[in-house]
């Protein structure tokens, strides 16, 4: 079964502190993994995908197949990073995104 686990429902950090949002997945094949973000009063939008290995808004995420993890990291959190973050898995040959339950990140001034 395909599953995405985000163990932290809430995460609170201070501005300038490093932040790591955890994501673990369960999938026997080769997955595509994504982080989606939802800012207050805005729609869900793609933040980054593992396949492009890019850094968006200072965020990076590395796929660790051994640990089946795809943690999202940022070295210095900003207040505007406060949002709901969802890790999502796209099983091979499928367009059925499987989402975790999400982590609400609050960056305090």
């Amino acid at each position, binding site marked *: 079964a395909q599953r995405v686990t985000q163990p932290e429902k809430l995460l609170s950090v201070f501005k300038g502190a490093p932040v790591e949002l955890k994501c673990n997945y369960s999938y026997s094949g080769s997955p595509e993994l994504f982080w989606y973000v939802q800012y207050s009063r805005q729609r*869900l939008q793609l933040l980054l995908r593992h396949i492009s290995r890019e850094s968006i808004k200072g965020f990076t995420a590395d796929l660790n197949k051994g640990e089946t993890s795809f943690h999202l990291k940022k070295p210095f959190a900003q207040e505007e990073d406060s949002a709901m973050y969802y890790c999502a898995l796209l099983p091979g040959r499928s367009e*059925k*995104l499987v*989402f975790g*339950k999400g982590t609400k990140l609050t960056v305090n001034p």
Partner: protein
Amino acid sequence: DAGVTQSPTHLIKTRGQQVTLRCSPKSGHDTVSWYQQALGQGPQFIFQYYEEEERQRGNFPDRFSGHQFPNYSSELNVNALLLGDSALYLCASSPPPGLAAFDEQFFGPGTRLTVL
């Protein structure tokens, strides 16, 4: 381009009723997916439409059905509503395969359905 649009924004129904939600995809997109997001949960895949046919389906009963029109817009129908159907219903569209970012789904603002 307004992106993905959904209507209505909010809807209140009673148990046993039927509801139809509507979605217009982003310009240039031909695939529409529907998700249900219960309070405190991540979106859960209902089904996906491509070329006016249901291409994939999640673990939802037959009470949930859909349709895609030639202009790629889509409807989600739910029959015999239950209290547990109360949720935010999200529509997402994606471009044809072969185009850049074909695996990215663009989400609409959602329709909030309350079943009393």
